[in-house]
């Protein structure tokens, strides 16, 4: 067993971990949840002995009666990878692109057991089989770029568990994956804990994932463990107010009036979009027809690569179609020709990464006023900027700031303010709340619901997070391989899907059991 006791870490004069204590028991899953900056990853790095060099740690991480915090680096190298393994959030970049997967798994075995390459590769084969990458289909000679995100995460797991460690630390292991892949990876981790008797420290921001996986849960806030206990009782009777806030926020239910949307705003008829690729072609949109009503909020769900974003881009007039047509208020949206500015001004978009979609050298007023180039900048544009800021809950004085001076949630509010400023009819929200912490996410969703009410906006809401889709949309379209396989009222699709694909999609969503709340 690995026991963390009174672990504190000071980084650049700031106490980032404050007396953290955790027991990591063999055969048990410990969930560590909390928002970004709460100290979850810092705890993991401290256990691994991989803290930044400037950090000072005190307390205990005890393994076999030895305190890892006091061990010299050479000893730690012998423990890392052998006794404690770790996997990370981004499977796309976690593997060396220039090394075969076989060699990457074998490296652990050669390093710690001194095996020769041949013997190590033999064992690597067995470990890759174990994580669901069986021999004929996944030879050792594959390179990471030849695998999907989920498969790469399996390789990362294989090398982390190659030596059957006492503890596996998984830091947001499925956050970058879509729901069905997430479900399979979580199943694999659960099996490994059971079969190999290792302890698993599962770090995640997603309470639903923890609910389905963990035996015990620790909730972190500002570097401290706010509350810790068996999963079921913690969810049923949270004692700490912060835990209660997290639980409430994880089931967002912004107040939205139910209504009909008889007037269509956007109409898509038989849209086809082909891409030319190295091996032939890819039909990203395969004859899609759909509508978005005036004032309606439509959700678009499906696995990665199913064509969600292509459809959104086509509606925005950014993707030329090979067949079919798209209209907004009866006006044809045609990316092939120069689209009239007036038409462009009627739709706006908010992306997932608010930092990447703002010029870091511009001040907020200039950023927010940018869409005015479509309509002509009104003389009172500064007043309009101030109004837009107020509308998303920011201060008029924020107009003179730069984007790096805002938090992630505030940046997303700015992105929404920018979209609103020219009063569009439609806003496309492409994973717009996916990068936000649960409480911030709930606030932004409330904001979106209020703005929709006040301005009669239509939303096209793309998300892999179905709890969000449930809270903010009236109707849902399930996409698969460029087609809409099922469509209907949100409630109905998410509670009683009829199509096989939608059913497996819904089944894969991690959920907090109903009787726990």
């Amino acid at each position, binding site marked *: 067993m690995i026991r963390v006791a009174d672990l504190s870490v000071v980084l650049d004069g700031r106490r980032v971990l404050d007396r953290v204590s955790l027991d990591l028991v063999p055969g048990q899953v410990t969930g560590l949840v909390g928002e970004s900056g709460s100290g979850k990853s810092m705890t993991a790095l401290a256990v691994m002995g991989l803290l930044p060099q400037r950090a000072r740690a005190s307390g205990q991480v005890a393994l076999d009666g030895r305190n890892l915090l006091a061990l010299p680096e050479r000893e730690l190298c012998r423990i*890392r*990878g*052998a006794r404690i393994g770790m996997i990370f959030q981004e499977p796309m970049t976690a593997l060396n*692109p220039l*090394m075969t997967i076989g060699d990457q798994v074998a*490296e652990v075995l050669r390093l710690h057991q001194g095996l020769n390459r041949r013997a190590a590769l033999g064992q690597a084969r067995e470990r890759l089989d174990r994580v669901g990458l069986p021999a004929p289909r996944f030879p050792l000679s594959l*390179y990471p770029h030849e695998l999907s995100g989920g498969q790469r995460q399996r390789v990362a797991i294989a090398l982390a568990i190659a030596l059957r460690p006492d503890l596996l630390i998984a830091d947001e292991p499925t956050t970058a994956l879509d729901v069905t892949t997430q479900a399979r990876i979580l199943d694999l981790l659960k099996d490994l804990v059971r079969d190999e008797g290792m302890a698993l420290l599962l770090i995640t921001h997603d309470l639903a994932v923890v609910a389905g996986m963990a035996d015990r849960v620790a909730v972190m806030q500002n570097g401290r463990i706010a509350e810790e206990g068996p999963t079921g009782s913690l969810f049923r009777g949270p004692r700490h107010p912060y835990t209660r806030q997290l639980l409430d926020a994880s089931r967002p239910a912004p107040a939205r009036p139910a209504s009909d949307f008889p007037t269509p705003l956007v109409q898509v008829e038989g849209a086809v979009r082909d891409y030319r690729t190295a091996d032939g072609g890819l039909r990203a949109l395969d004859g899609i027809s759909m509508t978005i009503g005036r004032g309606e909020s439509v959700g678009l769900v499906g696995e990665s690569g199913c064509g969600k974003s292509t459809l959104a881009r086509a509606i925005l007039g950014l993707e030329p179609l090979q067949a079919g047509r798209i209209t907004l208020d009866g006006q044809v949206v045609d990316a092939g020709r120069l689209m009239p500015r007036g038409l462009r001004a009627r739709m706006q978009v908010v992306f997932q990464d608010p930092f990447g979609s703002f010029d870091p050298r511009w001040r907020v007023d200039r950023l927010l006023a940018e869409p005015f180039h479509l309509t002509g900048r009104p003389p009172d544009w500064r007043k309009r900027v101030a109004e837009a800021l107020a509308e998303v809950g920011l201060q008029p004085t924020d107009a003179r700031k730069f984007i790096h001076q805002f938090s992630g949630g505030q940046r997303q509010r700015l992105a929404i303010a920018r979209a609103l400023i020219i009063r569009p009819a439609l806003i496309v929200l492409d994973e717009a709340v996916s990068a936000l912490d649960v409480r911030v996410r709930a606030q932004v969703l409330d904001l979106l619901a209020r703005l929709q009410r006040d301005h009669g906006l239509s939303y096209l809401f793309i998300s892999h997070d179905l709890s969000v889709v449930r809270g903010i949309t009236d109707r849902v379209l399930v996409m698969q391989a460029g087609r809409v396989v099922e469509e209907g009222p949100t409630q109905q699709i998410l509670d009683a899907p009829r199509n096989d694909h939608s059913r497996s999609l819904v089944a894969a969503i991690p959920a907090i059991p109903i009787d726990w709340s």
Partner: protein
Amino acid sequence: MLRYLLRRMFVMGASLLAASVLIFSVVELVPGDPASFMLGTGAQPETLAALRTQLGLDQPLPLRYAAWAGAILQGDFGTSFTYKTPVAGMILDRLQVSLPLAVLALLLAVAIALPVGLFAAGRHRRAGDALAMGAAHLGVALPNFWLAMLLVLVFAVNLQWLPAGGFLGWSDPVPALRSLILPAVALALPQAAILARVLRSALIETMGQDYVRTARAKGLSASQALRRHALRNALIPVLTILGMQFSFLLAGAIIIENVFYLPGLGRMIFQAITQRDLIVVQSAVLVLVAAVMAVTFLVDLAYAAVDPRLRRA
């Protein structure tokens, strides 16, 4: 892989053709008539016309290009206007100096840059890094002819370990190699400084990558992770710079060749230009262009060797 190679080779052939047209036109458009240069200012118009006919200068431009290019394809680079000897032989003679010099300088540069870059990256933001990069700054800033003169003063004049200049040919390889050492060092040091800086920043960037963190989580020490995982990934930008440096060293060594009295390619081209020896200029420049392209091709091959994503593309 084969497709990758074929595509590269096709691009190389097309570039060479375009380069030959460009070189020919530029040289033709530059003012200065080789015939009148050869005969001096007091020449009779009839003699001048006769010489122009003899040199083929009275033919229309496209015909002359075709004749020149056709001959080159058969290995005939023409005859120098000034020396009346085959250009191919002249270039070959000079390459015997320039090619070994460039290769030697490049090997030296790599031999210096590799440990310095690794050292600096391993001590990022610490004293050792600052020291190494300070030295590299100095190396980039120093003019290489000044460095060359310094080397001559110290190692040839004072210590008398190596010759101060001149080159007597490869018939006796040891003195030949000895006379190339100082020029190679003078050429290599600034290149090593550039290379070390590029390698250091590439290494530091790769050290921040997720897969290096994965390597550390496997139990590799920081320096093992640097050598086994970061280095190979950092080589890709370094290879690009290396290719450009070799091209520069092959023809750009003219100042160093002058300081050390070396009969290299750079000096030959310079002399040919002052003497309006057009045929020599054209052919030598074309040979250089071909060499640069061959190096680029080799760099492309090296990319593919390093990066599996290119191999299977």
